[in-house]
């Protein structure tokens, strides 16, 4: 299956084969990253713009390094420093960037659907680096890549996503990717943040954390974004931790080979016990490493790359 999309806007619209093309390409780029010379000329002469209308550090740095490893030129553009605050519309800002011959625009935005809106009128490729509560496709791709790398398969695995699902773009992208690749997805968290409507996407929803993680092969913890929560969603961080935090006692009842994932940044002592974050079953830092390879693959593919066969090894 070769890749022929100009943009990466969401996982929902991708086929399983397309997801696998990205993962296979990422594997080839991961090998490149392990060499003494980590740079390839795949995007030489191309311009990538990191358009971050919502602040982000790790995703922006990951894309920045990925573009550099592909020999692209990269510009970072963040909302605070931009004219967006002076009343310029997103459309005008993006058109200005395109007038500078940007080839790829990587956008993070607090409004769901903003990258879809950009893609409608730009000639440049658009990569969604997280839009509101909608999707964060490269996060799901790197999570899936990590699962595949550690477990050798995705199909048939039991994956539990624990935390704030309602406002999480990571959750939505992971749900689509995992279901398309044949995993069984369970969602768990406070009922206000994990509405039953998510069952219609093909997941199981439960509010019993012990039951949710007992048979899980993968436990993916989502950050409780207290700054984004309306005060009505749950009483306190303390109550969240006591009801849903991944503690050593809870982990002891899980499968011994269950992997612990987290998109970061982690809140030690809130959604995860500090020791667990650093234990051998935690693949949190592998996720970061794999994120770089996945983002190289995505940049490469939206720029016209067809698949892993084209990555010079």
């Amino acid at each position: 299956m070769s890749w022929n999309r100009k943009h990466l806007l969401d996982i929902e619209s991708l086929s399983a084969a397309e997801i696998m093309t990205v993962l296979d390409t990422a594997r080839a780029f991961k090998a490149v990253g392990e060499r003494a010379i980590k740079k390839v000329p795949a995007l030489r002469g191309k311009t990538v713009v990191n358009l971050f209308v919502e602040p982000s550090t790790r995703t922006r740095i990951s894309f920045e390094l990925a573009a550099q490893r592909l020999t692209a030129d990269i510009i970072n553009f963040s909302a605070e420093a931009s004219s967006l605050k002076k009343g310029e519309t997103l459309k005008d800002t993006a058109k200005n960037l395109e007038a500078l011959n940007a080839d790829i625009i990587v956008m993070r935005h607090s409004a769901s659907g903003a990258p879809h809106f950009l893609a409608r009128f730009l000639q440049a490729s658009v990569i969604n680096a997280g839009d509101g509560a909608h999707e964060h496709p490269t996060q799901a791709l790197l999570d899936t890549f990590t699962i595949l790398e550690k477990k050798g398969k995705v199909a048939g695995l039991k994956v539990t996503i624990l935390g704030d699902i309602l406002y999480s773009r990571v959750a939505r992208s992971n749900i689509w990717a995992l279901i398309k690749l044949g995993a069984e997805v369970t969602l768990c968290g406070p009922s206000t943040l994990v509405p039953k409507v998510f069952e219609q996407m093909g997941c199981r929803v439960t509010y019993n954390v012990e039951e949710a993680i007992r048979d899980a092969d993968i436990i993916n913890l989502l950050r409780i974004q207290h700054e984004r929560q309306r005060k009505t969603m749950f009483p306190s961080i303390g109550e969240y931790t006591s009801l849903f935090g991944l503690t050593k006692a809870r982990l002891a009842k899980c499968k011994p080979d269950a992997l612990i994932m987290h998109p970061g940044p982690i809140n030690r002592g809130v959604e995860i016990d500090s020791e667990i974050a650093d234990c051998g079953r935690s693949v949190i830092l592998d996720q970061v490493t794999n994120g770089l390879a996945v983002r190289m693959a995505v940049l490469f593919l939206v720029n016209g790359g067809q698949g892993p066969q084209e990555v010079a090894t």
Partner: protein
Amino acid sequence: MNSLLVTGGRLIDPANRFDAVADLLILNGKIAAIGADAAAKAPKDVQKFDAKGLVVSPGLIDLHVHLREPGQSAKETIATGAASAARGGFTSVVCMPNTTPAIDNAGTVALIRERAEREAKINVFVAGAITKNIAGEELAPIGSLKQAGVIAITDDGHCVQNNELMRRALEYAKMFDLPLMDHCQDYSLVSDGVMHEGYWSAVLGLRGWPASGEEMIVARNIMLAELTGSPVHCQHMSSAGSVQLIREAKKRGIPISGEACPHHFTLTDTVLAGSEKYWPTDGKSFTASGQNLPTWPSYDTNFKMNPPLRSARDREALIEGLVDGTLEIISSDHAPHCGYEKEVEFDYAPFGIIGFETELPLSLMHLYHNKMMSLTDLLAKFTVAPARLLRLKNKGHFSLGADGDVTVFDPDFEWTFRRDDSTSKSKNSPFDGWPMKGRASATIVAGQVVSQN
């Protein structure tokens, strides 16, 4: 002057339960004769309008429109809005008070009436605010507004949250026999919602606006109508629960009424996932026609309105409510916005769509051509029902001496709506490229043809 003989049309007058091919004579702007009398009484040199093969209805009334003047004339003016209304077949409209400044003072009412007199060829009636600056805190000078000529009050676009204030507004308005209309939205439940809360809001990651955010206020209004004995008209109903509440309240004799807009009984929230998702699911009934159907992307802001498009079940309930008379009025909620205002991220786009020129065809398609109701019953929702609510004794019917406002239309005319062809100053319609059936042929106000398609 202002005399016209409309000949050979199928004359439908819902108020008088009249439906037959007949001539209609307007003399000096008033209905003077119907049937054989008409030609006999007509002056020899009277101007004639041939309506053969067409339906001749009392002039259509749209009691819920935003003409944006004063203060927002980049979106629409009284002149352009009224022209679009005329083109859609409307002889009378009621403009909402959320202008800049709001219509909460006699001076603004006078300004609009004076400008409408000069620039609009149709009747533009004015709705005043319930509260000062439609802020929901203090009563607007309702008596002065009445004296200045408003025919209803509403805080449309906003909703009075304070129940005690709403109660007093109802009691106070009753003194003037002034209809009160309410945009039903509970702010705490709706919060920053931008679309219907359901499967698609979950998938698209957009903040949901639950149906109960409307139903809560509909229920409140029913209780206050009962308490005060003063009628409440619930604007643009969007949910099945609202229809059920109004239906039950009416059975108990409570003075409550409701209206529906064509977009709410045509579309569902699935449209926000894009046309690819909509046509095979909630839009299936359209695909049966085999016509070319338009496409649109996900997160299209031309589908963003308040209240939002809801589920297929809600859509069905609205149609049931229209059919059984629970909802007695159809309005457009014509809400123009500039292209650049809508060309932004979905969260940031203003709510609202234009609607004058698609209102009659969409209503004909979903209610008449679909065999849900007769033309007479459908036209009642555009004529006698709004006229009664607004106490417009001389409009909405063809009784002798009534105002000579007439809409002539072809219920079977097939055409495609193009938003760029709209007469409105704004083009924010979701129905671009949609096949339509039925269209106004001529709009006649006080015996004068003011628009012809």
